[in-house]
């Protein structure tokens, strides 16, 4: 059995929290450049150019890409042959988030739901564990912004709504979100499972690199059709009108109850903060 220390985990999480806030992913940069090539609105082109310049400034390491550096959502794929030593793994991850947000001058954006009192260190982060075969650990950190998260929804459709109903719901959701979630956006769609699993699938869909289609040809086609329909809405960069409303639509699906058709739409802004580490 392979031993991994909580210290290694804390260090990895801290590094990812920092990098996610300062370094725009290569996949996102490429998608913004593709958008620039296609965008017909002068204002839309101006906005995309500003976002690319913004990413260059952030990369210098003094100003995070966005003032909303997010609520940290951490996904852990824990190999069943790993033995974690040195303390509580949950606390090790929270410590990594705490240290990363403090040392990186990142905004602490977590508060009590009623009093709105800030917890002061951006914890608690949201943790999702999955036990997998093997002796490795894969940790993914997403710094989820509030503006785009607020535009996300879970909907329990009727089985009779079918595939068309799902597609219409996703497009309608993006239309209603309009300029609010900082377009161009990334759209994560979770289909099936249960109420909470659909939401988790939608969030996991956001972790797939932009431009990489679902391996299932039917879902890949659905992603492509949804992206096309969303970019015809006219919302555009910053919502000021244009053809680049979404950079990608990623769909994940699993079986559901015979009575149900859960659909979740998780919207992410163009900062699309997420980093991955293998230990």
């Amino acid at each position, binding site marked *: 059995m392979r031993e991994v220390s909580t210290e290694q985990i804390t260090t990895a999480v801290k590094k990812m929290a920092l990098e996610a806030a300062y370094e725009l992913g290569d996949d996102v940069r490429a998608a913004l450049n593709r958008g620039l090539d296609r965008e*017909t*609105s*002068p*204002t*839309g082109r*101006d*906005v995309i150019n*500003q*976002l690319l*310049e*913004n990413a260059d*400034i*952030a990369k210098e390491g*003094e*100003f*995070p*890409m*966005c*003032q*909303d*550096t997010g609520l940290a959502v951490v996904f852990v794929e824990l190999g069943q042959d790993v033995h974690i030593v040195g303390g509580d793994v949950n606390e090790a991850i929270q410590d990594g988030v705490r240290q990363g947000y403090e040392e990186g*001058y*990142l*905004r*602490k*954006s977590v508060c009590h739901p009623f009093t*709105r009192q*800030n917890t002061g260190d951006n914890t608690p982060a949201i943790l999702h564990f999955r036990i997998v075969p093997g002796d490795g650990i894969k940790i993914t950190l997403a710094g989820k912004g*509030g*503006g785009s998260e*607020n535009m996300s929804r879970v909907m329990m459709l009727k089985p009779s709504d079918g595939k068309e109903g799902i597609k219409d719901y996703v497009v309608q959701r993006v239309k209603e979100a*309009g*300029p*609010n*979630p*900082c377009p161009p956006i990334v759209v994560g769609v979770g289909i099936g499972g249960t109420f909470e699993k659909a939401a988790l699938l939608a969030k996991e869909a956001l972790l797939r690199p932009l431009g990489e289609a679902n391996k299932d040809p039917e879902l890949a086609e659905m992603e492509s059709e949804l992206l096309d329909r969303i970019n*015809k*809405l*006219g*919302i*555009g960069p*910053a*919502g*000021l*009108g*244009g*053809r680049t409303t979404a950079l990608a639509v990623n769909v994940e699906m699993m079986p559901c109850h015979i009575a149900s058709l859960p659909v979740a739409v998780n919207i992410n*802004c*163009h*900062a699309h903060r997420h980093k991955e580490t293998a230990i």
Partner: protein
Amino acid sequence: MSEPIILTPPLKDEDVVGLRSGDRVLITGTIYTGRDAAHKRLVDLLHEGKPLPIDLAGQIIYFVGPTPTRPGKPIGSAGPTTSYRMDAYSPSLIQQGLKGMIGKGSRSQEVIDAMVRYRAVYFAAVGGAAALISRRIESSQIVAYEDLGPEAIRKLEVRDFPVIVVNDCEGNDLYRDGTEEYAVK
């Protein structure tokens, strides 16, 4: 695109009435920050008939909660937050003489109506261009509600701060019109 309009607060009615939805504007001078919690406190004071900690007449409020300031810098990253969360409060502040708001995202009809009635405008800054925007902020000073941390009210000195007029005081809306222009039917 046409040349940007230069504005320096405090703004008078005549500065505001000439602005049209879609105009690019560069702001130089003093603006104030405020978001959810600060807005609630300001409006609570108005309801209690008490004075506000800042005089809003002619001023612009920027909806932002910046990242912590690094040593030697005037401010951290400071891009706009989503404005609809301030919709419940903005009409009361517009009534107090507030002339401009900077944020991102659509406003409610109540806010749009208040802008028409009392002559005020809503500007958008580019959401997520926070590092770029921070370079146009020359100084930052907390003037109220320090206990709110990133949500405290700050007085900012800005130079060539880039915004675009979304809602003018004739009820036009760039989000609606821009989307209609580029929608493929």
